[in-house]
């Protein structure tokens, strides 16, 4: 069964902005789904419609098999939402925020106390349970919103840029937490600007731009669509004009005095590059991909669209 099924979804705001221009998307249950797109692409609008914060103009959306027009309450029961912007009652205590959220889903308070402890501990907030939300740091507030979204044990967790503005250590911690959650069967839908995050976490991806899905598929399938992949090589000696001439066929350029970047077409192998190095008697100390593969694809696609 699909966790989310969207058909020809359109949204035009009162300002006349066409935020979504006929989006169709199916997200299978248990997936870790990444939704990528530049600012203003329509990601937050799409998530807003799924979660009940934005009214759609036309089209159909089903959540866990429930049509959001016919059974909005049943659909919402299955979703937990972590929005992009902080939307906490800042004068409430951490524990109360999470327990009250359970109440809005009809979870009895005693049961909510147990779940609140479980998720606040899992997200490192148990010690802060008696503090008011206003006193928390940005990272803590974001984790609090995750705990709040999970309190009713949803089948689907939607996160709108959850790691925006979060430091590296915390971001990795969140990745581990979300991966574990997904392995326990929770469908996760994540929008992000961090392409590394999408490549690392998501099983399936969709790229949205100007209100339209311009590409979708598994990460592997999407990366395969890359025509060219850049690699960087650290050389033992300084780069000269002669060095570059040996690698002309790979569109080589110097990144600094001893690092060279080559752009490898899809129909060529890395061995071909090494043969070129051998021919020029150029010694390589180290090599790496010089750009995130997904980033490359993302830029290509959004530029085209």
């Amino acid at each position, binding site marked *: 069964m699909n966790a989310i099924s969207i058909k020809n979804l359109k949204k035009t*705001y*009162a300002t006349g902005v066409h935020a979504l221009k006929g989006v169709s998307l199916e997200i299978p249950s248990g997936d870790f789904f990444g939704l990528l797109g530049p600012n203003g692409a329509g990601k937050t*609008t799409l998530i*807003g419609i799924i*979660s*009940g*914060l*934005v*009214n759609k103009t036309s089209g159909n959306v089903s959540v866990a098999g429930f049509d959001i027009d016919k059974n*909005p*309450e*049943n659909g*919402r*029961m299955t*979703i937990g*939402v972590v*929005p992009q*912007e*902080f*939307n*906490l*009652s*800042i*004068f*409430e205590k951490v524990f*109360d925020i999470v327990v*009250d*959220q359970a*109440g*809005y*889903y*009809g*979870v*009895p*308070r005693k049961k909510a106390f147990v779940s609140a402890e479980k998720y606040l501990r899992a997200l490192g907030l148990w010690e802060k349970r008696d503090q008011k939300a206003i006193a928390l740091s940005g990272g803590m507030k974001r984790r609090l919103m995750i705990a*709040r979204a999970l309190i009713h044990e949803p089948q689907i967790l939607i996160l709108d840029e959850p790691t925006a503005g979060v430091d590296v250590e915390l971001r990795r911690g969140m990745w581990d937490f979300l991966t574990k959650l997904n392995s326990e069967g929770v469908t996760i839908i994540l929008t992000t600007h961090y392409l590394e995050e999408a490549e690392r976490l998501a099983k399936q991806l969709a790229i949205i731009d100007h209100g339209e899905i311009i590409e979708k598929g598994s990460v592997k399938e999407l990366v395969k669509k890359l025509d060219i992949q850049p690699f960087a090589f650290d050389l033992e000696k300084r780069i000269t004009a002669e060095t570059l001439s040996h690698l002309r066929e790979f569109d080589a350029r110097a990144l600094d005095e001893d690092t060279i970047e080559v752009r490898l077409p899809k129909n060529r192998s890395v061995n071909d590059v090494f043969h070129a190095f051998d021919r020029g008697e150029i010694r390589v100390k180290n090599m790496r991909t010089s750009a995130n593969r997904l980033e490359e694809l993302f830029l290509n696609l959004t530029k085209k669209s």
Partner: protein
Amino acid sequence: MSAEKLWICFYTIVRKEIIRIFRVWTQTFVPPVITTTLYFLIFGNLIGSQIEAMNGVSYVEFIVPGLILMSVLTNSFQSSAIAFFMAKFQKSIEEILVSPTPPWIIVAGYVTGGVVRGVITGVLVYLVSLVFAPVSLSHIGSVISFFLLTSIFFATLGLINGVYAKNFDQISIIPTFVLTPLTYLGGVFYSISLLPPLWEGLSKLNPILYMVNGFRYGLLGTSDVPIGGSALFLFIITACALWLVFRLVKKGTGLRA
């Protein structure tokens, strides 16, 4: 949702609201008590002692029902208006909007929160009034009906204001420019039989007049208007206001883009 789950949703909204009201008790309960104490002292005791009996009761007794109801309506309105607007302002209203809590429970929860504050304030003001004029309850049914219906009506109006308000100014415009003038002209401090015919007729267009007089009948057994008609009128406008705010919340006016 099952009845038990609906009850939990409702209880959660009301509980949160009651905690908020008591957390800021110096802003919610103290000001109306001080204000009405001053009214009783100045208008009731000092000036009132110089005024003849009105509708067969002393002036200080005459103003007790109006002052109680004035506190009830003002506080019921402010409570739901501020609570809902603050939730919108902080975006914490999204906590409820993404949940399966149905619109009628959201309305019921916020209105009940407003009613709780209105009722507590009304009781406090009644207790203060006993110091100045030991008013008994002549018709308990009328007291309870007008007390509760007024509170529900104004809590609902406050919620409508909260739904439409886009900034803090819009929360204070209605109380300042509509509620206060209507309350003062609604027979709190005088009997409309004292007014010239034109003003007496115009006063009868003011819904607060019927609430004040219905409540006054319950406490003192005297009224400028028919009680049965007033109760029915109040019931109808309350039902209309509730229906309107339910439609607004269901549609997502001021809530969903």
